[in-house]
């Protein structure tokens, strides 16, 4: 029996007071006695063999304490690669990185040596003086080119550049095309960028030679993955490897990986007997932190005379980058996200995952979905053009009707469960978005603008997103002897305010104030099992676990109090941090007193039949993903001379089931849209034909700023899911997923007078100008 004093309310964040005072503790703020710092020597070539490494000159640099190559690392690490996190039978070459490359480097930025010094400045001085005999090899700079027979090999010994192949689909595609009134083709090329949290990565490690134990602090979304990686690399038992996350300054997906530095820094701490620190700089972030979104899609749609989809087929080439730290899950997610909110009787997609000599790709906010939504929504617009139907109308004719929920898509999701949309009303989401955006009279606005020589356009992006991925994220709830209640969980925040959300759920269940809850997250030493923060999963998984474990603790408090007062539990109530006998004059006992009774203190005798643990753990295991959905409408103005895009209006209809904290969900949506705006209009990680990265500063790779990002008008629909005790769905990525689709459709719509068609993402100003010129030439 829970009350809802906090759940559903815009509770102010427990995280804020320290962060606002400059009292956050981020990875670079850690300073341990005797600590030394390192800098890495990284490849300037996208693909090369290492002929030799001369460290003599580096060792002469003042402050440098040592230089280590792969051969100098402990013997147990030799020849070992980092644990592949998401294995899959479709992977043909399960290649991950070595902690330091020993023979061959496969992207510019891959580390081959590490310099240890008394501070970072000296370590960088040393790194500059390490001389490597590079023997450059041919490099693969694009995933489509990687598949050409004449392409260089991204890995010298791999035989080909294929990292994996898979196919997804349902229904009779051939029959669908045989009967089609219209067959419409499209080719689409979303491009890669990365997460760019404002805090880069970083690792600190300390080795306890007496306890033979490692303590590792790392700026990650997933300390348990790091622990699994370290345990595998060093062949140590889990209880000797404690991974702790300090405050994490943003993640967005790339911090969900296990990186070479998280192996090398602990190795050095063991070898040298001193704490070791490495902090990534922004250039290293551009060069080494995982990226995503390079894909090439060829899609063909079969459509009947009314604009209804009969079938969809095609080919997806996905850029894995140089390694597969996270397997090939993003193209799988892309492939299973394409159908989205639409009825498609038959679907088949062949997927080829290609190695290239660029930074490995792993999930980045949206994880394969922004591309899938981009291509599907572009196809919808193409169908509309072909049949002379309005963009909203062609979508309306194809929506899954609300009365068909739950809807079995006919696909298998990444978790192995069928794709069954649980709840949601997709036509209504679009209807509300269009109403809010003033869609009906947009044509008049557009005409009026055109008469003034202004080019404005409108675009729609609809999506369905699998969220709340399992297998679990557990929580332990414990009543402390000071009367406060502690939550322990593997759920590791990077700005999402897990502390606040989880405290809200616990506080309601136990009838206490959120301020009386201590939340300890992201420490493998206090929570031995966990997965981490990704896939918009924490509220669903950890939130549900907190609810279930708190309910168990409540029962224990009642049972203990009932025994103490010799009454039935039914005559007790839990409120205000105590258990009371119901009624005006009833006796009461505080949580603190109950915790002391059961703490093992001599002098307290436990009532018969009561176990001395005022704590409970739960590992909520969702039966399948729960599907969030939404509809975005963007209105933009394009300066046809400069190619600059201004977002005039942005509407989001967002359905993530029951909302635990509206303020936080709005924050996720607004921030997610900002990320999507970057993906649509600015963020393009550029490599030259030899796979050298060309955009390695924030002056070359532009991030969205306050002047570009508008105030999104957010409308909440709440379709609770029956799949978890909170009725909640994920909210962390939905802002980003359809934003490029909506914005680029709007840009194209604005440029209709020039006959411009846009099939790429992002679309930068110089490219817009080019497309206009090409359109005028035609």
């Amino acid at each position, binding site marked *: 029996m829970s009350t809802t004093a906090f759940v559903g309310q815009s509770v102010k964040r427990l995280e804020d007071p320290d962060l606002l005072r400059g009292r956050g*503790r981020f990875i670079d703020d850690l300073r341990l006695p005797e600590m030394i710092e390192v800098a890495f020597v990284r490849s300037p070539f996208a693909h090369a063999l290492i002929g030799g490494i001369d460290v003599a000159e580096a060792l002469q640099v003042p402050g440098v304490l040592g230089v280590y190559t792969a051969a100098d690392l402990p013997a147990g690490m030799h020849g070992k690669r980092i644990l592949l996190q998401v294995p899959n039978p479709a992977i043909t070459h399960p290649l991950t990185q070595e902690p330091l490359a020993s023979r061959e480097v496969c992207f510019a930025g891959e580390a081959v040596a590490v310099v240890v010094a008394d501070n970072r400045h000296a370590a960088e001085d040393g790194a500059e003086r390490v001389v490597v005999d590079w023997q450059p090899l041919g490099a693969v700079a694009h995933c489509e080119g990687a598949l050409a027979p004449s392409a260089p090999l991204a890995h010298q010994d791999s035989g080909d550049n294929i990292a994996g192949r898979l196919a997804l689909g349902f229904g009779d595609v051939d029959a669908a095309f045989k009967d089609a009134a219209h067959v419409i083709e499209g080719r689409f090329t979303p491009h890669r960028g990365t997460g760019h949290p404002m805090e880069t990565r970083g690792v600190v490690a300390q080795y306890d030679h007496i306890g033979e134990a490692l303590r590792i602090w790392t700026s990650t979304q997933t300390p348990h993955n790091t622990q699994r990686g370290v345990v595998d690399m060093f062949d140590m038992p889990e209880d000797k490897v404690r991974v702790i996350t300090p405050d994490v300054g*943003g993640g967005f997906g790339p911090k969900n990986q296990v990186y070479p530095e998280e192996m090398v820094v602990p190795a050095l701490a063991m070898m040298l007997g001193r704490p070791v620190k490495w902090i990534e700089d*922004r250039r290293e972030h551009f060069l080494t932190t995982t990226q995503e979104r390079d894909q090439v899609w060829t899609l063909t749609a079969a459509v009947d005379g009314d604009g209804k989809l009969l079938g969809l087929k095609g080919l997806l080439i996905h850029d894995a980058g140089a390694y597969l730290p996270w397997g090939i899950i993003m193209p799988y997610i892309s492939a299973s996200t394409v159908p989205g909110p639409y009825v498609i009787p038959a679907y088949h997609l062949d997927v080829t995952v290609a190695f290239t000599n660029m930074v490995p790709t792993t999930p980045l906010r949206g994880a394969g979905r922004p591309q899938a939504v981009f291509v599907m929504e572009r196809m919808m617009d193409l169908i509309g053009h072909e049949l002379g139907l309005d963009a909203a109308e062609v979508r309306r004719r194809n929506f899954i009707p609300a009365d068909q929920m739950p809807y079995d898509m006919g696909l298998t999701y990444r978790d192995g469960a069928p794709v069954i949309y649980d709840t949601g009303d997709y036509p209504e989401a679009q209807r509300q978005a269009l109403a809010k955006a003033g869609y009906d009279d947009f044509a008049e606005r557009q005409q009026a603008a055109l008469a003034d020589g202004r080019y404005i356009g409108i675009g729609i992006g609809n999506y369905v997103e699998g969220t709340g991925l399992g297998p679990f994220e557990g929580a332990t709830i414990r009543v402390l002897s000071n009367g406060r209640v502690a939550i322990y969980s593997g759920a590791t925040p990077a700005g999402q305010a897990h502390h606040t959300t989880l405290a809200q759920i616990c506080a309601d269940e136990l009838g206490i104030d959120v301020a009386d809850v201590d939340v300890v997250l992201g420490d493998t030493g206090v929570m031995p099992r966990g997965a981490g923060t990704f896939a918009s999963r924490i509220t669903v998984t950890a939130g549900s676990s907190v609810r279930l474990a708190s309910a168990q603790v409540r029962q224990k408090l009642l049972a203990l109090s009932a025994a103490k007062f010799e009454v039935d539990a039914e005559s007790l109530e839990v409120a205000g941090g105590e258990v009371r006998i119901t009624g005006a004059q009833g006796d009461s006992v505080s949580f603190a007193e109950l915790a002391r009774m059961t703490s093992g203190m001599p002098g307290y005798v436990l009532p018969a039949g009561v176990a001395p643990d005022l704590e409970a753990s739960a590992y909520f295991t969702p039966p399948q993903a729960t599907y969030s959905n939404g509809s975005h409408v963007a209105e933009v103005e394009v300066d046809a001379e400069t190619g600059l895009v201004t977002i005039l209006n942005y509407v989001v209809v967002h359905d993530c089931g029951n909302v635990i904290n509206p303020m936080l969900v709005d*924050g996720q949506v607004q921030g997610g849209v900002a990320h999507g705006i970057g993906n649509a209009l600015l963020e393009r990680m550029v490599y030259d034909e030899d796979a050298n990265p060309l955009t390695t500063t924030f002056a070359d790779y532009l991030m969205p700023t306050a002047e570009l990002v508008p105030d999104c008008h957010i409308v909440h629909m709440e379709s609770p899911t029956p799949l978890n005790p909170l009725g909640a769905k994920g909210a962390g990525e939905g802002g980003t997923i359809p934003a490029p689709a909506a914005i680029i459709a709007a840009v194209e719509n604005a440029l209709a007078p020039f006959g411009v068609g846009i099939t790429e993402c992002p679309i930068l100003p110089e490219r817009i100008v080019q497309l206009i010129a090409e359109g005028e030439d035609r």
Partner: protein
Amino acid sequence: MSDDSRPGREISLTVNGEGYSARTEDRFSLADFLRQGLGLTGTHLGCEHGVCGACTVLVDGHAVRGCLMLAVQAAGTEVVTIEGLADADGNLNTLQQAFMEHHGLQCGFCTPGILMTLTAYRRDCPDATEADVRQALSGNICRCTGYETIVRAALAAWREMGAR
């Protein structure tokens, strides 16, 4: 913090009203010096090439990129960092309170720089409009919030301060 064999010198400056004299390497940025030399880790480094604004501090009242100014250039100046915004008892100031009220931060890493930028801007432009505030913030990158709540917090703080 630094090896005396490397070029450096003793500098004196005032930080958050307190006088400091300390040795710094000549090549240390002001942000490095504040963080490593004085242990004031509230000033964050996001890019170290002067674009993201996370390291913004006030030097003699001006909002300055702590990564682009050398520590030795700050000798004799008065510096204010994020640690200097709350009052002596630790109470959040009006701007900080507005950030909490309006959800102006998520991960909080860029927040110190944004608060320092806005502190200088509010003093110079107490009548700023929303568009002005957005422009003033254009040198600070926030990846989490999408800026809207930051702008709202700033304008709310402006109103609150103006009412006094």
